[in-house]
């Protein structure tokens, strides 16, 4: 007797359901996609017990006709595609015709729909005059019920009761109500961000979780979900078919949960895009921290394939590297072009009205004073126009009323006195005074506030940049040593010598073998003053042999295309292997926390900082500069 047999279709659907439907959130996903495909502008999702007991989705889409209703729960029935050619140009969210069939197999499903009254259908036969009727159809564990008339508004409502009631194994794997609800909310959030113009409502156990009116700007949706603190720090970038809101590198998150990628309004996960984002922020944020990124890509459906997996979470791009490179370049350019001095979040400054005065009484005079302060606060930009051409004659200061209140007098004097030729063209170069505290930080006055600079981090950043410049020009300044420095290597290190040697040479470290497991340093890069050379050599070897390093080296070999892209973006044609070593070298060469700096050294550091090429983080991604603005100080001291 044959052991192989064809499975009954119900069983097939149950099995398929495991792929498409694995938890309430995926039910919500499928239903919302159907609703969006039907042109809905209002979508309401109601769940009970995290969706385990009950899920209802109501939309105002085009609805289904009586004739279609019996077919909705059948496998591979769909209105979204009809020929094979359609598969390569999918413009709808669903197309496989699996979702409702799967749902019908593993739950008690009910669908009510009323066809939208379309203008073209005005002259219907007499029997069907007026608005089209609504119909309802049920399917319980794969048993299709009859199609019956019902009363309902235009659109479609789908109810899913007792999900997985007949697949106990699957049901067992569901998490607590709260966890499942979290997933549902996350799912609705994704759609709400992708479709800001659609009204979403999410109700759990009769409580409104989300109530989102349609908006024109996606930023409003982001603000709703992530709050002002994050959204105010987002930068907008746009190029071609890619738009993105990206976070200032100062604002980082502990996981990638704040990264949302949308492809033609479909939420996707994509390793290449994630990689591009990671690379764009490389060296700007600390290891183990992630930026918030909301990326919206529009591309013709022919350029990618979503039919990779039933959940359609992953896509395959036809030109994956091109997408990667475009995104990397877009974000990186923006990041390098921006000034990211972090500002103190003094949002919690005590309210003036909290002095026990009734709000009404206190409000009036304070309001008036506030208006004055605001008025004058807007003056300073006139006195420090961004186009201030350094030495070439600052425009005469106008005697505006602001001069009386904002006390710009002494400041401006110093400024004109300072505006020497060496400050021409430097972005933020109008320095007034600076000093060092705790032999670690430099405090510097700038027109709109105070900069607090981590001397080591900033110097390291500057040196890394300069050193890379030298390397790029294949012109590292190597200082010959009068007496070579001998470094005794460990056996493990000695084995690596021939491998690491080309790198050492590139870095400007000339080494020669010197007897048993000892090397002699003949020349060192000029920037390396004050470095403990043997220690540095050991660290270089250590870095070189670390796993992470090897991985990078491996990835370099397999993904050279990408690295070339990096080079184009950052203008650095470096072997990324060298990067770590350069960073290490710069770190050793930079002034340390605890080094007393002479005033000239402080000035030199600040002058270099003003050069536009430098970002405000050290190569390890730690911030180097912190800014306290005058406004914040005023707020804190309740002058505002």
């Amino acid at each position, binding site marked *: 007797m044959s052991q192989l047999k064809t499975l009954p279709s119900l069983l097939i659907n149950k099995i398929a359901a495991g792929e498409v439907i694995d938890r309430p959130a995926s039910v919500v996903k499928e239903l919302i996609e159907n609703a969006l495909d039907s042109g809905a502008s209002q979508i309401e999702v109601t769940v009970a017990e995290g969706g385990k007991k009950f899920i209802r989705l109501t939309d105002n889409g085009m609805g289904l006709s009586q004739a279609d209703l019996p077919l909705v729960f059948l496998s591979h029935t769909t209105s979204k595609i009809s020929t094979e050619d359609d598969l390569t140009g999918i413009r709808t969210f669903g197309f496989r015709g699996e979702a409702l069939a799967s749902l019908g197999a593993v739950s008690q499903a009910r669908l009510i729909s009323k066809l939208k009254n379309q203008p073209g259908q005005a002259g219907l036969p007499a029997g069907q005059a007026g608005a089209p009727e609504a119909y309802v159809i049920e399917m319980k564990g794969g048993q299709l019920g009859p199609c019956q008339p019902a009363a309902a508004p235009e659109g479609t409502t789908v109810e899913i009761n007792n999900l997985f009631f007949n697949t106990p194994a699957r049901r067992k794997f569901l998490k607590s109500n709260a966890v499942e609800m979290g997933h549902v909310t996350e799912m609705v959030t994704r759609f709400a961000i992708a479709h800001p113009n659609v009204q979403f409502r999410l109700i759990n156990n009769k409580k409104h979780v989300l109530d989102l009116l349609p908006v024109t700007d996606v930023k409003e949706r982001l603000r709703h979900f992530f709050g002002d603190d994050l959204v105010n720090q987002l930068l907008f970038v746009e190029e071609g078919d890619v738009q993105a809101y990206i976070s200032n590198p100062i604002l980082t998150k502990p996981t990638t949960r704040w990264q949302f990628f949308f492809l033609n309004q479909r939420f996707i996960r994509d390793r290449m895009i994630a990689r591009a984002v990671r690379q764009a922020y490389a060296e700007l944020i600390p290891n183990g921290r992630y930026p918030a990124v909301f990326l919206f890509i529009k591309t013709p459906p022919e350029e990618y394939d979503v039919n990779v997996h039933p959940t359609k979470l992953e896509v395959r791009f036809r030109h994956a590297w091109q997408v990667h490179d475009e995104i990397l370049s877009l974000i990186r350019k923006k990041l390098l072009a921006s000034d990211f001095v972090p500002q103190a979040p003094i949002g919690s400054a005590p309210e003036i009205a909290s002095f026990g005065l009734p709000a009404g009484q206190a409000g009036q005079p304070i309001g008036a004073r506030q208006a004055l302060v605001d008025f004058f606060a807007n003056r300073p930009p006139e006195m420090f126009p961004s186009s201030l051409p350094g030495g070439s004659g600052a425009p005469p200061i106008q005697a505006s009323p602001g001069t009386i209140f904002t006390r710009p007098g002494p400041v401006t004097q110093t400024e004109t006195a300072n505006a020497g030729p060496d400050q021409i063209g430097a972005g933020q170069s109008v320095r007034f005074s600076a000093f060092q505290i705790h032999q670690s930080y430099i405090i510097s006055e700038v027109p709109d506030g105070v900069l607090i600079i981590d001397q080591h981090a900033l110097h390291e950043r500057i*040196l890394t940049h*300069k050193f890379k*410049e*030298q390397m790029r*020009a294949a*012109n*590292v*300044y*190597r*200082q*010959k*040593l*009068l*007496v070579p*420095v001998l470094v005794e290597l460990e056996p493990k290190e000695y084995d690596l010598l021939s491998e690491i040697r080309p790198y050492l040479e590139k870095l400007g470290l*000339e080494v020669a073998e010197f007897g048993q497991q000892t090397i002699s340093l003949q*020349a060192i890069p*000029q*920037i390396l*003053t*004050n*470095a*403990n*050379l043997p*220690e540095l050599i050991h660290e270089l070897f250590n870095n070189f042999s670390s796993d992470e390093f090897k991985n990078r080296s491996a990835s370099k070999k397999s993904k050279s295309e990408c690295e070339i892209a990096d080079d184009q973006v950052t203008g650095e044609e470096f072997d990324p292997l060298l990067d770590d070593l350069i960073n290490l070298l710069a770190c050793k*060469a930079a002034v340390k926390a605890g080094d007393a700096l002479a005033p000239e050294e402080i000035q*030199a550091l600040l002058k270099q900082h003003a*050069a536009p090429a430098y970002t405000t983080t050290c190569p390890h991604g730690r911030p180097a500069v912190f800014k306290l603005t005058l406004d914040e100080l005023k707020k804190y001291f309740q002058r505002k």
Partner: protein
Amino acid sequence: MKITCERAQLQEAFQIINPIIPTRSTIPILQNIKIIAEKQTIFLIGTDLEIGLRYEIPAEVKETGTIILPTQRLGAILRESTDEKINIESDGHIARIKTKIGYFKILGADPVDYPDFPEFDTKKAFEIEASGLKEMIRKTIFATSGEITRYALTGVLLEITKKELRMVGSDGKRLAFIKKKSEQNVPQNIKVIAPPKGLILLERIIQDKDKKILITLEETQLKIQVPAGGSRKHPIFLFSGLIEGNFPDYANVIPSDSDKKVEIPTAEFAAAIRQAALVTTDKFKATKMILEKNTLTFFSRTQDVGEAQVKMKVSYDQKPFEIVFNPDFLIDVLRVIDEPKFTLEFKDKTSPIVLKIGRNYVYLIMPLTVDV
């Protein structure tokens, strides 16, 4: 204690001791100055434990004793006063200072807490010639390294033989060597590394009139007595710790095979190199020196800054030659050269530049390998 002394003398002593006194110290009592009143003199003592100085001035001592007083405050009183004489009385740890118009009561510290100050044992001492010492210190100390990672190089090597005095300073990239013929009655050849702090102090104390200084050498300490003379009524005693470590074998490093040689007028050369260095920056300093027939050219170029080219006439007719180096290394040495002329010698691009003044001063600069 109860003393009266000349304010000017006391102030001079303060000025010499003050730089030694640490402004911040883990041992706060070191921020004080110790005053000991004996028969007809008072001793002023300051130390940071690494180096120390004892200065003696004549005084009218009515009552002997010891007091520890904050250096800065006492110094300020001396500075502000115009009196000829000054009175200091102590009562326990409290000092009462009387000037014509002022009366100060200053809280001092307990002398017991002040570290012991070494004594100078004249019997063990040997004499070395003082003349020229100042110059030797000046011409070598600038070349020492500030890098504590090569500790021996932070100090100046001091070699004393019966016939010669030698000093060497180096930071591993350049080296300054000076020697002087002089008679010393040292029992054997001496070779120690002295920290710059102590030498700078010695350089400041020695006056041109000084003929001899007395030295004793102990395991970790160099003790020096500068005898009375000139305006100094009493000898000054200073000690300095020594640096342990191996100083590189300088004799092997000084090349003898440099085949190109050019005589250089100091002032003109100094002006030229300083101009050429204008366009170099903090951590990236490189200048190329080009020698052609009777012309010396400096050339510097720094990205983001610019270029400089400075020419001067020299008499040179050997093979054209060029070498790149850190201009600071030359600028530094030119600050301490008083002679109107010196010679430069070269071998090739990777061998040291050798600057010589007569037969007694040699200064080496290791080149940079970089294309400018």
